[in-house]
C-alpha cells in the first residue's frame, strides 16, 4: 500500500508529463506483479463495485470525531471529496509511529473484497481499526477504494506509455492488450508483460481511433479526392466483434453493451468467423437515423420489452474493418480496408456501410453540411484515404467537421461549488431564459470559461449572493452568458419542458444586459424546428 501511496503522491505532486511517466515506469519496474495488476486496474480508470455505502463511512467518522451532521456537510461542501474529508478529519486520531505495511494485493483480496459480505458491526470494527493504524495519505486511498472512487489523476495514454517503456513494446500493442475486461491478478500481469502476449481474449476489442475537431479551414487539408467524407452520425460509437461463434458489442467507453442491442447481436451471427467492425449504434428506421433522443430513451430502460424495441429499432452503421478472418487489418490504408469491407458486407443488408458523401469540392461540401440537422447528424467526418487505423486521438488523418452549434443567451441564476480540483470555486452554474417577466432555469453548464474568468465569476458570485440553500447560492440575475449546445429535446423532467444537449459556455457576454437574454419562446421554436 505504501508503494501505491508513493506513486499517487508522485503523480499528484507534479504537473510535468515526463515526471509522471517516470514515476509510473519506476512503479511498474519495482512492484510485484500481483500488486502491479491492481495498480494498473485503478490507473486505467476501472472501479471496484462499491464495498460500503458512503453513509456508513460518514457515520463512523462522525462517531470517532464528534463532528455533528451540519458541520460535516459544511466541510464536505468546502472540500468536495468525501475520502479526503474523512482522511483530514481523522487526522486527530493517535497513530502508531511504525504503521503496519501490507502489499496492495493482500489489502484488496484478503481485506477489502471480503468486506462486502460481512455484517455491518464487523465492517465497522475492521474499517475503524484500519483507520487507526494507517497514515493519513493511506486512509485517503483506502476510503477511495472502499467507496469505489479511486481515480488517479493520470490519463491512460500516460499509463500505456510507461508500460510500453517497461515492456519495450510499441504503445499501440500495450493499449490493445489492456482493452476489454480483465481480472487484476498475478497471472494477468505476467501474461501482459510476456513478450508474445499472444493469448488473446476473444472478446477483446481494439483501441478506438478517434477524430480531432477540425479547427482550420477544410481547404487546408489539400485535395478533396484524398479524403473519405462521411456523415457524423449521432449515436453510440461501437465495435462489433464476432469470434469463435460469439458476438460482443463494445461502446467507446469500453463498456460491453451486447445485451442492450439484441437485434444487432443476432444479425452479427451471420458474419464470418473472426470479424471486427467499427461503427455507430443508431436508432434507425426506414433507412434513416432517428434523433438521438429516441436511442437515449431506450438506453434508459431496464427491460427491453418488444414495445421498447419497436419504438427505437437499432442498427449498426459500419465505418471500418478492423479484423477479417481473424487477421488484424489496422495497418492497411483506409482505401483497402474500405474495399474489403464492401466486399464483406455485400450480402449483409443488416449492416449498412456509412456512405461516402460525394461533392465537387470543399465549398460544395460546406453547403451540403448545412443539411446536417435535418438529417439528424452532427456534420462530417473527414478520413484520409491513406490512413491506417490508429490508436486514440491522433491528429492529422481523421477530423470531425461539425455543424455550428445552437446558441442561446441566458442569465446566471444559481451557482454551486464544483468537485475535485474546483471544489472551492463556484463552477457549477444554472442558467435561465425569460418567460414573460420571470427567469426560468433551462440548463446547467460547467465548462467553457478560462481559469481567469472562473476566478472572476467566483468572486462576483460570492459578492452578489441573494440566498444560500446548502451549497447552492442564488445570485443577482445580472450576468449574461452565450451558451452553445448541440441539440434540444422535450423533457418532462425539466420545469422548462425542454433539455439541451451538451450545453457549454461560449462567452461571458459582459456587453449584454439581462433583458437582452433569450426567451423560452425562442427555444421552443428551435425545438419545433428540430422535431
Amino acid at each position, binding site marked *: 500500500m505504501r508503494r501505491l501511496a508513493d506513486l499517487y503522491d508522485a503523480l*499528484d*505532486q*507534479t*504537473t*510535468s508529463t515526463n515526471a509522471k511517466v517516470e514515476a509510473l515506469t519506476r512503479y511498474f519496474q519495482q512492484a510485484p506483479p500481483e500488486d502491479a495488476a491492481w495498480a494498473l486496474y485503478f490507473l486505467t480508470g476501472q472501479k471496484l463495485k462499491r464495498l460500503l455505502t458512503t453513509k456508513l463511512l460518514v457515520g463512523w467518522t462522525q462517531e470517532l*470525531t464528534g*463532528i*455533528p451532521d*451540519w*458541520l460535516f456537510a*459544511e*466541510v464536505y461542501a*468546502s*472540500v*468536495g*471529496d468525501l475520502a*479526503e*474529508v474523512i482522511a*483530514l*478529519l481523522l*487526522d*486527530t486520531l493517535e497513530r502508531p509511529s511504525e504503521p503496519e505495511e501490507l502489499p496492495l494485493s493482500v489489502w484488496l483480496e484478503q481485506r477489502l473484497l471480503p468486506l462486502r459480505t460481512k455484517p455491518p458491526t464487523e465492517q465497522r470494527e475492521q474499517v475503524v481499526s484500519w483507520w487507526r493504524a494507517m497514515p493519513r495519505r493511506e486512509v485517503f486511498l483506502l476510503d477511495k477504494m472502499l467507496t469505489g472512487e479511486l481515480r488517479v*489523476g493520470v490519463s491512460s495514454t500516460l499509463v500505456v506509455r510507461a508500460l510500453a517503456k517497461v515492456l519495450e513494446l510499441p504503445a499501440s500493442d500495450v493499449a490493445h492488450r489492456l482493452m476489454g475486461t480483465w481480472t487484476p491478478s498475478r497471472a494477468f500481469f505476467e501474461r501482459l508483460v510476456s513478450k508474445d502476449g499472444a493469448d488473446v481474449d476473444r472478446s477483446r476489442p481494439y483501441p478506438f481511433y478517434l477524430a480531432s475537431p477540425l479547427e482550420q479551414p477544410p481547404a487546408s487539408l489539400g485535395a478533396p479526392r484524398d479524403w473519405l467524407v462521411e456523415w457524423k452520425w449521432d449515436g453510440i460509437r461501437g465495435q462489433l466483434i464476432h469470434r469463435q461463434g460469439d458476438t460482443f458489442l463494445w461502446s467507446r467507453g469500453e463498456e460491453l453493451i451486447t445485451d442492450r442491442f439484441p437485434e444487432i447481436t443476432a444479425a452479427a451471427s451471420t458474419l464470418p468467423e473472426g470479424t471486427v467492425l467499427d461503427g455507430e449504434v443508431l436508432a434507425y428506421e426506414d433507412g434513416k437515423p432517428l434523433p438521438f433522443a429516441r436511442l437515449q430513451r431506450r438506453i434508459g430502460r431496464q427491460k427491453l420489452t418488444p414495445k421498447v424495441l419497436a419504438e427505437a429499432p437499432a442498427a449498426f452503421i459500419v465505418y471500418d474493418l478492423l479484423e477479417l478472418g481473424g487477421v488484424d487489418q489496422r495497418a492497411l490504408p483506409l482505401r483497402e480496408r474500405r474495399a474489403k469491407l464492401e466486399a464483406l458486407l455485400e450480402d449483409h443488408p443488416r449492416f449498412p456501410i456509412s456512405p461516402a458523401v460525394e461533392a465537387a469540392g470543399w465549398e460544395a461540401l460546406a453547403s451540403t453540411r448545412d443539411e446536417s440537422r435535418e438529417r439528424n447528424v452532427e456534420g462530417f467526418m473527414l478520413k484520409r484515404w491513406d490512413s491506417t487505423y490508429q490508436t486514440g486521438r491522433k491528429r492529422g488523418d481523421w477530423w470531425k467537421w461539425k455543424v455550428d452549434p445552437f446558441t442561446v443567451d441566458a442569465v446566471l441564476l444559481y451557482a454551486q461549488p464544483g468537485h*475535485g*480540483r*474546483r*471544489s*472551492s*470555486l463556484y463552477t457549477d452554474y444554472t442558467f435561465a431564459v425569460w418567460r414573460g417577466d420571470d427567469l426560468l432555469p433551462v440548463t446547467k453548464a460547467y465548462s467553457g470559461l478560462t*481559469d481567469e474568468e472562473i476566478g472572476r465569476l467566483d*468572486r462576483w458570485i*460570492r*459578492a452578489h449572493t441573494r440566498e444560500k440553500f446548502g451549497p447552492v447560492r442564488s445570485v443577482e440575475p445580472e450576468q449574461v452568458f452565450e451558451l452553445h449546445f448541440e441539440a434540444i429535446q422535450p423533457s418532462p423532467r425539466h420545469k422548462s419542458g425542454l433539455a439541451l444537449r451538451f450545453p457549454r459556455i461560449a462567452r461571458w457576454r459582459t456587453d449584454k444586459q439581462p433583458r437582452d437574454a433569450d426567451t423560452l419562446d425562442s427555444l421552443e421554436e428551435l425545438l419545433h424546428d428540430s422535431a
Partner: protein
Amino acid sequence: MVPPGTPRYLKRTVDAPTPSQVRRPLVTVTPQGLFCEPGGFHIDPWRPVERAVITHAHADHARPGSQRYLGTRTGEALLRRRLGADAVIDSLEQGERRTLGDVTVSLHPAGHVLGSAQVRIEHRGEVWVVSGDYKRAPDPTCAPFEPVRCHTFITEATFGLPIYRWEAPRAVAEDLVRWWDANRARGRSAVLFCYALGKAQRVLAELARLTDRTVFVHGAVHALVEVYRDAGVAMLPTRLVSDVEKGTSFAGALVLAPPSAGGSTWMRRFGEAETGFASGWMRVRGNRRRRGFDRGFVLSDHADWADLLRTVEETGAEQVLTTHGHAEPLARYLRERGLDAAPLATPFEGEAED
C-alpha cells in the same frame, strides 16, 4: 418573538434586559469597518476614517487615507511602508495603555506577523478584545500570541473548519528542505510562492535552523526581509533575483516569490522549475491542484480549528463574535457548546491571503 436558536447576542433588545445588557456593544460594524463608538476610533477600517487602530500591516488590514493611525512599536516600520511617509502614525508598546475617548486601549501580541496585535478595549469595567489575524503555532519572527481575558472576544475564523489542522512548523521546514534538495539533485530550481510579508520571513527563519544556504528572493519579498533584519530577526542569507547577472543559471536554487509572480514572464529565468506554495490553504488538495502548484506546504499564519477553540476558551469570553472566512460554522459550533456566539456581519472578502 425571536425564532428559537437565535443567538443571545441578537436577542438582547428583545429579552427583558438586565442592567449590564442595556449597554450598547463596544464595537459595531459600520460601512467603514469595525467601530468603537465610545473610543471614537475604527479598527482596521476599509475606508478612510479619522482615527484608525491597526492590528497589523497586511494590505487588507492597513489601508491608507485615514487621518491618524495607532499601531504597535514593533510593527511601525512595516506600517510606514504600507501607509507612506506622510501618514500620521502613533505607536504603543505591547501592553501599554492609552486613553482614547471614553475607553482605554492596549495592544497585545497576536503571533501573526512581526508587530501584529490584538486590540483590547476597556470601557467602565467591560472588556472587548478584537483578535485581528492570529496564530498559536511557534514563529521565530514575531512575539507569541497572548490570551487576553475579556467579556467579548471578536475572533477571526479564516480556517474555522475542523479539517484545518497544522503540523509542527519544524516538520514543514524539513519537508521544504527535502524538496529543495531533490530539485538540487536534478539541477532544477525550486520556486516557493508565499506571501511577501510574514510568510516569506517565517520560512527564511525556520530554514535557518536546518541549513545556511543562500535563498534567492523576489523584489517584493526582499524589501520586507530587510525590515525584518533591522528588527533583529535571524534568517537565511538572501540575494535579490534581479541582482543576479543575466544568463546566470538558477539550477539548484530555492527562490521565494509572492504568488502574483506565478505565471509571469519573471518566472522564465528559472528554466525548468518546480513550484510550491506555502499556505494553510494547501491543506486541501483541490486548492493546490486548481492553482497548478507542484507542491503544497501547509504553513499558515492563522490559527487552525483546534487553536481557535482553545483560544476562545482561554479568553474566558462570555460572548464570541466571529469574522473572516468560516465565521458561520465556527459561531454555530461554539453556540452548540453553550457559548453566546454569532458571526459578525462584514462585507464580502475573497479567500484570505495566507
